[in-house]
């Protein structure tokens, strides 16, 4: 989860998120250098004593400031497209979970090996135990195995919602009448938090998502398979 006043991305829990963080660092460095150059140019413009009212053209400069941005855009676009296609790879998921958005809670369905369906409501502040996170913890978490490809089918029963888990690099809109799919493979166990990311009414900020990722052996022993 994010800590107070955090600006950067959360640590990655999936290979895709690792790639996204790498790409973010790459793009940020390029942006930083461009900003540095622009600020320097601005400084020079503001402090120059030179005035020349007879400049009619500057072909070389125009060529440079056309070609250079094109090269920079290619340098940014290529890794971006690589990650985009990586996210769409078909990887034979082991498990399919359905996630349905409501106002203002999520319903999860584990229908592969049984008929487990449950709602996940945010814990109201009065019901928090010591150590629980305000506005983030829920009554029923989504328990999933690590190191197994998982498919999430996301939809909504009423208005637009968005199912987000930043540490996995996931954000998928829940649209009524449409089934969106996202897949991920978690690489380390833990409890990971996300929040609804599409404005959906008064309690839009109070319908969090909590994933509890556990080793596969323990997941297989769990109640999911006893139903």
């Amino acid at each position: 989860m994010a800590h107070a006043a955090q600006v950067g991305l959360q640590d990655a829990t999936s290979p895709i998120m690792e790639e996204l963080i790498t790409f973010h660092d790459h793009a940020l460095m390029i942006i930083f250098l461009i900003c540095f150059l622009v600020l320097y140019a601005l400084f020079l413009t503001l402090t120059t004593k030179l005035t020349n009212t007879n400049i009619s053209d500057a072909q070389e400069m125009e060529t440079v400031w056309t070609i250079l941005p094109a090269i920079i855009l290619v340098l940014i676009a290529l890794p971006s497209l690589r990650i985009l296609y990586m996210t769409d790879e078909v990887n034979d998921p082991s498990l399919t979970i359905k996630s349905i958005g409501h106002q203002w809670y999520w319903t999860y369905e584990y229908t592969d090996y049984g008929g487990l369906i449950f709602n996940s409501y945010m814990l109201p502040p009065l019901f928090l135990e010591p150590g629980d996170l305000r506005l983030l913890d829920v009554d029923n978490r989504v328990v999933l195995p690590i190191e197994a490809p998982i498919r999430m089918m996301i939809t909504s029963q009423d208005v637009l919602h968005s199912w987000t888990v930043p540490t996995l690099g996931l954000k998928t809109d829940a649209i009524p009448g449409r089934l969106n799919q996202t897949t991920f493979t978690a690489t380390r166990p833990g409890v990971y938090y996300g929040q609804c990311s599409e404005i959906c009414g008064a309690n839009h900020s109070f319908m969090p998502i909590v994933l509890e990722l556990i080793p596969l052996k323990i997941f297989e022993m769990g109640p999911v398979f006893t139903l």
Partner: protein
Amino acid sequence: MAAPPEPGEPEERKLLGFLDVENTPCARHSILYGSLGSVVAGFGHFLFTSRIRRSCDVGVGGFILVTLGCWFHCRYNYAKQRIQERIAREEIKKKILYEGTHLDPERKHNGSSSN
């Protein structure tokens, strides 16, 4: 990268207050070499030409080019290292899982080399 500092650990320091160069791989290395390159290029140009403004331009240009060059070089090596780490991790897992069975990678390798 995203964990808050534990009590007792030194506080995070960010360049210009928001650039997290400590936790971004290759960033600190690139910025430091870029700064060094900028100073060397700018000061060197000034020593030879005594032109202050042009030397500042060279310094800025040097900073950008050296930072970018170091950045791409370091990130390329970092990416290669990550791939090698991933391959090593997968091979170790396979070794642990299949040791002693017909799927043991070492047995396959020894079998093919003896043939």
